[in-house]
Structure formats: structure tokens, C-alpha cells
């Protein structure tokens, strides 16, 4: 069988690993529009602040592709997909036929129209090339502005601050990480940012970018402020990179639609990772998760399904983990439940100890979690979301520090044990 994988990050790599675990026969061709050895996007902010060396970005052995017997084409962009003849044409003119195709083209950083692209000092933080550019700019910069208060924005701001730059964050919302956590947790994060002298401008947007020649000098905001800076990192989120399916009949909404087997509307074509739209367990709707952990899981399942070892995806759970000023923070699913839709919330706050826990429930099932300060056993709570477990018999113990796998053994038996031992 001829397997073609487009994209060489989390989902594409995970697919290769699960295919090769069971299938040594099929040929695997992988296309990547980047030119770097397999690297971890999540580590880019660590490399930006020099917390890890460049080699530390490689999350698999340098010989990964030859070990896995994958024919990797780097610096090659897939530009056309013929779904009937089952082949993909690349920008270098090469044509690759396939029996099974995995689209793992990831996402693209959103870039507001009012910010000029290609200006020196203006960057996004998405690829290794982006980070190399930021690192070059950091050397001649004193002040940096980050546009966007999401996870990437926060990680960029913390890293630039660690580089010794005076760093400001411009956030349109009234708080940071508004998609990921609630008001209380946001407040805590903002305090921590303040403690490391990162200034945050809320309910503010950049309206204009000032430059001398083609070099950034300052940004102007809608609140009338002028913030001088030599570096601007745009972190306004990402959008699925669906260009390849534009002139095909493969169905998409925001991302490419997939079923529980990571299959698109075309039988032999699969999608996984940031480009794919999947079922979301906590909301019951289909959405693009755009998260590393979800991409790995989806790529893994896509790989298995492509070689006929059919396994169904339970669905995604949005999850994020972050350390802010040394304080760990993990969140899952619905953390800001809408009013009047039957959600129930349990919280525990120990202000002095810097601990905040929140569990969001609906119909006795966990739909969302925030753990701040104390994250032990986080994954046990996640497993309750994934199994849609009725938690009513131990609901009162969910936010306790004593809650753990033992609690489940006493209440619902020994879940997951067999599943993880004999997959």
C-alpha cells in the first residue's frame, strides 16, 4: 500500500509511528514545506528564551525517518490534490500517488490586515523559521509588544521578558487566556505577569504600526497610546491550513470534517491535527482543537485506521498546561460555562497557598476543569471526562487534594487499567 502524509509535525509523526508499529510493508512518503529536522512546536518559546538549545527542539532521534523507512521530502509544498486519480502535485512539479492520504497540514497564524507583513521587527510565533527571525530581532531590540492574550501570546511574552526585553501585551478581551480559563484564574495569571514586570493593556487593540523605512518603531492603540517597540509578535490565534482541499469536494466547515476514524468525506483521505475538525467530548459539538496533545492522538488514530486497524476516536478534550512564574496551571474543556444551560460548578480556593480548583459539571458528568497551583492527579480527572463517568457518588471529593485514582477504585472500580495494559 502507498501511504502519503502531508505535514511533518505532531499528527504526521504520530501517524508514522503507529503505522510502523504494525505495518512494515507499506511505503510511506511524507511531504513537509519546512526544511528542518522534526522539531516540537511547543518548545519554540523555550528556545526563544534560551531555556533549551536548538538541538533540544528535536523530539525524536535524528535518524527517525530512516528508522521508520519514510521517504521525506523537505521544503516541498503540496499544491494540488486530485481526489479521483488519488495523487498530489507539489510546487516543485513532483506528483505523488497514494492509496491512503493523511492531510496533516496544521494551521497558519492569523495576521490582521492592518499590520503590514514583511516589516522588519514584526513576527508571528509558529515555525522554527519564525523563532529564528524573532531571535535575530531580539538582539537589536529593547522593547517588545505581544498582540494577543492567548496561550501563544502568554508564552511569547514570558519568553521575551526572560530575554531581557521590556515587554507589553495588548489584549482585546478584558482578561488573558479567556478561552482557556475563568476570571479568577486569569486574574491570578495577570498578577504573576505584573510581578515579572510584563505590562498588560486590556480591551485594547493595535490600530497602526509605525516604522522608519521598513523597520518597526512603535505601535499605536485604539486607546490613543503609542508604545515604542522594536519587536512585535502577533499572536492572534491560528486557522486551519485547508488550502489543499480548496478545489476538491472534501467537506469542511472551519477545519476539514472528520469522522471517528479520522476519515474525511473521501474514503481514502484522512485528516488529523490542527487542520481537522473532530467531535469535542465536553461541548458535544465538532471543533478544531489546534493542540499538540490532540494532534498526536488524532495522528496516532489516523495511522491505525489507515492500515485497517480500526480504532474509534472518543473525541477531543481541549486541554492546556502552562507554568506561570513557577506556578502550574492546567485546564480542560468548558471552563466558562454559559448561564442557564444546566451547568453546575464546584470551586475551592486557598488564596494564601495559591491554589484554585474548579470543576464544571453537567448531568453529573465533568465538562471542564481548572487546576491552579496543585495539579497532582490532573489526568485522573481527565479520564473521568473522557469516559463520561457519572461522578455523583464522589462529587464532593473532586476538588480535594486527596482525590486520586484510589477514590475511583473505591467508587467505580479500576477504570483504564486493563485498557492501558492491553490496548
Amino acid at each position, binding site marked *: 500500500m502507498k501511504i502519503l502524509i502531508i505535514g511533518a509535525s505532531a499528527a504526521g509523526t504520530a501517524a508514522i509511528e503507529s503505522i510502523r508499529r504494525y505495518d512494515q510493508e507499506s511505503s510511506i512518503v511524507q511531504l513537509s514545506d519546512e526544511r528542518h529536522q522534526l522539531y516540537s512546536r511547543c518548545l519554540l518559546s523555550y528556545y526563544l528564551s534560551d531555556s533549551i538549545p536548538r538541538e533540544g527542539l528535536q523530539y525524536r532521534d535524528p535518524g527517525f525517518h530512516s528508522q521508520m523507512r519514510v521517504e521525506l521530502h523537505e521544503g516541498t509544498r503540496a499544491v494540488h490534490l486530485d481526489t479521483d486519480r488519488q495523487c498530489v502535485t507539489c510546487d516543485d512539479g513532483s506528483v505523488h500517488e497514494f492509496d491512503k492520504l493523511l492531510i496533516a497540514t496544521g494551521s497558519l497564524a492569523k495576521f490582521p490586515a492592518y499590520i503590514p507583513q514583511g516589516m522588519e521587527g514584526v513576527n508571528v510565533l509558529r515555525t522554527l523559521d519564525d523563532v529564528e527571525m524573532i531571535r535575530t530581532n531580539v538582539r537589536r531590540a529593547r522593547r517588545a509588544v505581544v498582540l494577543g492574550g492567548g496561550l501563544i501570546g502568554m508564552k511569547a511574552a514570558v519568553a521575551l521578558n526572560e530575554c531581557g526585553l521590556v515587554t507589553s501585551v495588548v489584549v482585546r478581551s478584558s482578561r488573558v487566556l479567556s478561552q482557556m480559563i475563568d476570571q479568577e484564574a486569569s486574574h491570578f495569571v495577570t498578577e504573576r505577569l505584573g510581578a515579572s514586570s510584563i505590562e498588560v493593556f486590556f480591551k485594547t487593540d493595535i490600530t497602526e504600526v509605525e516604522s522608519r523605512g521598513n523597520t518597526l518603531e512603535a505601535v499605536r492603540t485604539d486607546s490613543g497610546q503609542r508604545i515604542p517597540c522594536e519587536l512585535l509578535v502577533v499572536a492572534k490565534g491560528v486557522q486551519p491550513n485547508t488550502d489543499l482541499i480548496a478545489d476538491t469536494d472534501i467537506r469542511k466547515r472551519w477545519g476539514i470534517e472528520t469522522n471517528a476514524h479520522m476519515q474525511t468525506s473521501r474514503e481514502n483521505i484522512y485528516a488529523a491535527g490542527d487542520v481537522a475538525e473532530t467531535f469535542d467530548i465536553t461541548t458535544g459539538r465538532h471543533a478544531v482543537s489546534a493542540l499538540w496533545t490532540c494532534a498526536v492522538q488524532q495522528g496516532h488514530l489516523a495511522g491505525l485506521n489507515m492500515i485497517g486497524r480500526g480504532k474509534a476516536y472518543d473525541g477531543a478534550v481541549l486541554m492546556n498546561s502552562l507554568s506561570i512564574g513557577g506556578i502550574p496551571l*492546567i485546564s480542560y474543556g468548558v471552563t466558562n460555562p454559559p448561564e442557564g444551560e444546566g451547568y453546575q460548578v464546584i470551586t475551592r480556593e486557598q488564596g494564601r497557598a495559591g491554589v484554585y480548583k474548579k470543576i464544571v459539571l453537567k448531568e453529573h458528568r465533568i465538562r471542564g476543569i481548572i487546576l491552579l497551583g496543585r495539579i497532582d492527579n490532573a489526568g485522573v480527572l481527565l479520564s473521568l471526562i473522557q469516559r463520561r463517568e457519572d461522578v455523583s457518588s464522589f462529587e464532593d471529593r473532586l476538588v480535594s487534594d486527596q482525590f*486520586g485514582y484510589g477514590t475511583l477504585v473505591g467508587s467505580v472500580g479500576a477504570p483504564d487499567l486493563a485498557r492501558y495494559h492491553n490496548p
Partner: protein
Amino acid sequence: MKRVICRMDRCLGCRACELACAVEHSESRTLVTAVREAVKPRARIRVEAVDGGLHRTLALQCRQCEEPVCAQACISGGIRRDERTGDVLMDPGRCVACWSCIMVCPFGAIMRHEGLHRAVKCDHCPGRDIPACVEACPTGALVFVEFTAVTPHGLTEQRPHSQAERSDRIV
């Protein structure tokens, strides 16, 4: 493949396993000096209350999963499974303390080591024939045994049954 198993009917919750584990993973590997080390040693095993009370307890550490979700989630490729021993191993040099592994482990078996600022988990005590926790267990609740498969009811309350069944019904 050998794994540490806890026979719940024998676990008293004395936490001798936690102490032995922390000492084994300390610099000096001796209790008297371990407690005075600059970086406070941390156990990779945890005694947990079953049913909320302390009447029944369970000592739990990494289950050395066949398909470890922690390894899948690790953003730096620092967790891998040794196909020969079946042990799930962490490369401390690769850990960036992002806590993704803690975020996904369904057993809560990965811990945050605040002193070392990285994640830690059970490593079956390299260099020892029998892990320190097993050796320290005064009631024989913890055993290190060859293990091939777990029954779906692998970790449940001990009920009276035959010896043969018994070996199957333990964690």
C-alpha cells in the same frame, strides 16, 4: 515484563513505600542524610485512600502502560517505552517542566518535583533487583511480579476466592 502490584487487602497505608522510594531517589540514598539534602527527595509512589477514608488504602505508582499516553503527550520526546523491559522511562535532561504528562496520566502517577523543577515517575529502581518500595513493604502488599495481562477487574476489592484467582485480582 515485571510490574509492581499492590495487594489492597494487605495494604495498611503505613507509607513505608513512600519513604523508601524517596530515599532511593535521593542523592545519598540513606535516610539519615537524605532528609537533610538541599533538594528534598520525593517519592514516586503514593498511598491513596480508597473510599475517602483511611480504612482501605492503596499504594500506586506508574503502571508502565503498554501504550503510554504520557509518552504521546510529552512535547520534548522525553518519555519512551523500553520494548525489552516494558518500562516507561523518562529522560530527565529533556523535561522542560510543561506538565503535559501530568495532564494526561489516567493514574495520576507522574509527580511534579518542585526541587528539581521537572516531572518524575517510578523507574523500577534501576540497579536493584527488587524496587525499594517492594522491599520496604512490611506486610507484603507490594510485590514485583512477572505480568502479562490484567483482567478487566484487575484492581478491585479482595473478596474471598481461590489462590489462583487471587493472583489475578491484584493491581
